[in-house]
Each structure stands twice: as structure tokens, then as C-alpha cells.
């Protein structure tokens, strides 16, 4: 199960990960993994909120701390996994996990998970929680929509910065409001100057994230989009890349969000 969790982390960017997993896993686990990654998943035994509630009850986490944790991870399955006490038992195999989940029902779900959690590290419990909640979405790369389109360029404005990385969140305009579209690692020659600007212009801090005025404009590109209702902009960008800082551009020169939905660009 631990190797499978590592495979899920690697798959979106590393197609060789499946071969590496095959070399390490038993034939039985490899077959189970292929089934999961091609859409044959166990039925949901508990809603994500319910799983999180069970963990919060067991750990005695107050609501205000839970809210702060959710702000950091943005993910109920991950928050629940990270709030659990450290693992102590022998890790189960992937096949054992799937068979256990398949035989579980909503009535036995809590006891089933409570028996598996202490045997796995947090990143594997995140995957376990998703499998139990029916929110596991990882697929084999070949099933992902092609991304061989020529890149499209955008001008976007920086609104948030995580100094660790550093990572910046870029946004496009909708009705005068900047809507975040991508988080990118800041890898430009001007990074030190940009970070100095960030330190001098921080409006608010949320944990590791600094909010800055929508003032600096960057050029970026991406190869395509996929709908995602969980994003404020309604889309995931494929392969977003930071190209350059446009020091002379004013924020109003950043693109409108409509540029992402332009049918001329999105065949």
C-alpha cells in the first residue's frame, strides 16, 4: 500500500513509475493497482466529511484548528491522514486494503478504517481515505487527454506568494477581480528582486502564504485545459510554465479570464 501511494504521487509526471512499481510489487498487487488506475474502484463506504469527523473526534481537534489545517492542505482526505497518530503496525499490502474495503459497509466503515490507519504512514492514509470515500481519481497517464497542443501564452498577475519555494499564484481578471489560475515556482533571474518587492508589499499572511497587491505581471504558457469545478476559475491548466516577468506591464494589461475559455484556442 505504501508503494502504491508513492506510485500515485509519481504517476502524473513520471510514466516510468508504473514499470518501477511492477518491478517492486507482487504480481497480485500489480494487478490490483492496474484495476484501480483504470477505474475499477471499491464502492464508497463513507463520505469524506464523515471520515474527517471520525479522525477529528478521536484526536480531539477543536474546530478552529481543523479550519486552519484545511486551509493548509485544501483536502479532507489529507487532513484526516495527517491528524492521525503516528503509524505503529505492519503495513498492509494494496490487495489486502482493497479486499478489506470491498467487504466493508457503511456500518463497518469506521471500524475498518480505524484498524487500517495505525498501520500506514500519512501519505498512504491519504490514498486509503480517498479509496474509502470514493474520491480516488488517479489514472494511468495514457488515459489522460493529450497535451500535444502548441503552448498558449497568457499575461497573468501575481496575487499570492509562498516564500518557501518560492511559489507564486497567478491570476486573470474577471469583472475587476483577480481569479487564481495557476501556482508556479518562481524560477526567474529576477527572483531576488521580486521577493524583496513581496516582503515590502505583503498585505496579509495566511500561514506560509503572503497576499500581495495585484501589481506584478508575468508571462506564462500552458498546453491545454481540463474542467475542474473545485477551482475558482473552473479549469486545471496542463503544463503551466512561467516564462518571464514583464516589469513594464501594468496589472490591467493582464488577460481576462475569458482568454482561458476562448473557443478559438480550445478546439
Amino acid at each position, binding site marked *: 500500500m505504501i508503494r502504491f501511494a508513492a506510485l500515485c*504521487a*509519481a504517476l*502524473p*509526471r*513520471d510514466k516510468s513509475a508504473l514499470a518501477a512499481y511492477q518491478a517492486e510489487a507482487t504480481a497480485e498487487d500489480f494487478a490490483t493497482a492496474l484495476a484501480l488506475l483504470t477505474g475499477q474502484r471499491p464502492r464508497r463506504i463513507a463520505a469524506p466529511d464523515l471520515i474527517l469527523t471520525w479522525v477529528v473526534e478521536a*484526536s480531539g*481537534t*477543536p474546530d*478552529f*484548528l481543523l*479550519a*486552519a*489545517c484545511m486551509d*493548509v*492542505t*485544501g*483536502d479532507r482526505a*489529507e*487532513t484526516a491522514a*495527517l*491528524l492521525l*497518530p*503516528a503509524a505503529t503496525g505492519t503495513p498492509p499490502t494494496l490487495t489486502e486494503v482493497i479486499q478489506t474495503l470491498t467487504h466493508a459497509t457503511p456500518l463497518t466503515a469506521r471500524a475498518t478504517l480505524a484498524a487500517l490507519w495505525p498501520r500506514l*504512514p*500519512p*501519505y498512504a492514509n*491519504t490514498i486509503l481515505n480517498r479509496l474509502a470515500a470514493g474520491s480516488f481519481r488517479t489514472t494511468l497517464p495514457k488515459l489522460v487527454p493529450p497535451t500535444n497542443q502548441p503552448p498558449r501564452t497568457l499575461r497573468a498577475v501575481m496575487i499570492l506568494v509562498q516564500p*518557501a*519555494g518560492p511559489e507564486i499564484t497567478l491570476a486573470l481578471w474577471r469583472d475587476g477581480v483577480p481569479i487564481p489560475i495557476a501556482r508556479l*515556482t*518562481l*524560477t526567474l533571474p529576477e*527572483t531576488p528582486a521580486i521577493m524583496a518587492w513581496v516582503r515590502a508589499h505583503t498585505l496579509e499572511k495566511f*500561514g*506560509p502564504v503572503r497576499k500581495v497587491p495585484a501589481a506584478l505581471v508575468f508571462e506564462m504558457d500552458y498546453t491545454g485545459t481540463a474542467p475542474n469545478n473545485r477551482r475558482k476559475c473552473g479549469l486545471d491548466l496542463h503544463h503551466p510554465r512561467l516564462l518571464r516577468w514583464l516589469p513594464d506591464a501594468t496589472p490591467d494589461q493582464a488577460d481576462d479570464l475569458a482568454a482561458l475559455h476562448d473557443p478559438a484556442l480550445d478546439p
Partner: protein
Amino acid sequence: MGLRYLGMMTRAPVLTFTPKGIYCPDGGFYIDPHHAVERALVTHGHSDHAYRGHKSYLCTDLALPVIRHRLGRIEAEGLAYGERRQIGGVTVSFHPAGHVPGSAQIRIERGGEVWVASGDYKVTPDGVCEAFEPVACHTFITECTFGLPIFQWRPDTDVLREIAQWWGANAAEGRVSVLAAYSFGKAQRLMAGIPAQGPIYTHGAVEDVTEILREQGYTLPVTHRLGLSPLPRDALIIAPPNVLNSDLLGTIGPVSVGFASGWMTLAARRRGLDAAFTLSDHADWPGLNAAIKATGATQVFATHGYTGPFRAWLESQGYQAGIVGPGMPT
């Protein structure tokens, strides 16, 4: 101490929070100020604590060589851990914070009332730097970089073994292992703690600090400065995180890139890396809570991190709690 202390409560606070940083009016000094001041007491040599431009610096004697290396010609003095120094109306001393070599908590005493500013700290020994020591105080100013219950570290030995397994597997497949880690503290903790699978190479920024610490007497393994000799495929390169954005990676053939940091506990931070290892020089949630309890403090101020929720948590645990920010502690 209790009765005497109650008497002191009516006086102005020992430390106040100003736009330049934490200030001691009775001593006329700042602690880790982020603007140029006359007199700075500095907890450790990381750049977000030891800023340039102060007229004079006071830190531990063990922190001084790295601070001098980073800041150049400065007027600075080092005190041994536990050594007391009268400054104006207060007595100050430095105590091990367990964060990086030479790092300290600063204890300030005024007529029986004791405040401690933690700087950055971790409570578990890391094998290289001086181990954290709890310091009894009435008021504790604590960092809370990882001040949420989702941050719980695994034992070092487990993480270091995992790193060794990754390095060994890369070596077997002809990939150089590149491990991103902060150049002062984390890098040395890694080189000293990872069971060796081959030679260790270091980026210049890491090697400069490593050489200084070796001269000070810290026990660190043999490392090779990157670029001076051919790179074997079983090498581990330890380099600062900005190397991930540099041209270096493109010049050394097949590589696997890992990152060692407390932030690697979060899936969002692991994305895009070949390997991620949760290893921090800051206290985790249980560590912060244990450290605060061990001080016996009744008043606690939070700084550096999730200060809002952490302050609320401390209040729910019965502490008089606040946040370090411009304005006077009450």
C-alpha cells in the same frame, strides 16, 4: 518567585513588540531585529534572524563564525551557553535551541521576572547541533512555523534510512541523487546522519558553511566540493533548494531530485519532486506543546508561523496568549 513576580506585573513589560522587532526597553537591545538597530541579540545565523546592518551583534560563540561568514565585517561578540551578561537593567543569557549549530533561546531577567525568546527551535536531538534545553520562565515567546496538529514528525532514524534507500536505488540505476536542503543546519544534519551509499558532494554554499563548522569542531563526514572533480554516479549532491531552479541539474546527466524539509509532509509541496523527505529543524505540533509546557510559563506569545490559530489553541489550554506584532504586550 510567584509573589515577587506579581509585584513585577505592574511594571512595563520586559520585552515589547515594535516594527523593527522584539525590543527590550530596559536593556536597549532588539532580538533578531529585521531593520538596522544599534544593538542586536541574534538567536542564530539563518538570514531571517541575523540581518545585515546592525551596529553591534551579540550571539553565542558557536553561532558567531557562520554569522561572520554570512554578514562580513561586523562588530560582534559571542557568549558561551549559560553565560550571564548584564545589559542595562536586565541580565541576558543564551540557551541551546536545538535548531542549528550555535542556535539559542535568549533568556532575559529583570528583578526576578524571566522572559525567554525561543528563536527557532526543535526539541529532538539531531546529532549535530546542541540539544534543546527547556528554560523556566514566566513569559515565553515561541515560534510556531509548524504550529498545527497536521505537522507530526517521524523519528529521524526512519527518515534518514528512507533517504539512504533512495540514494542506494539511484546509485544502482546510475542516477546521481540530488538532495535539496537548507545550506546551514539541514545540510550538515543530513551528511552526518544518512547511512552512506557513496561519496557526498556539496554545492559551494553548503561546503562553505560545512568547512566553518568543521573548523569549530563539529563532527562532519568527508564531503567533496562540487565541480572540482568528476562526479561518480553513486554520488549524493547536497545543495540549497534554489539549485532546483538552476542550470546545474541539466549538466550532470540522469538525476533523481529529492527535498528534505518539514513542508514535505504536505502533498502539494511534494508535487514535481522525484522524492520528498519530511525532516525539519523546527518543532512539530507535539514538540511545540511539550516545549511550552516545560517552560512553566503562564504567558505565551506566538511568532513565525500559524500565529492566529496557535494563539487560540494556547488560550484554550489555559495560557495567557498573544501574538508578536507591532504594539505592546499587555
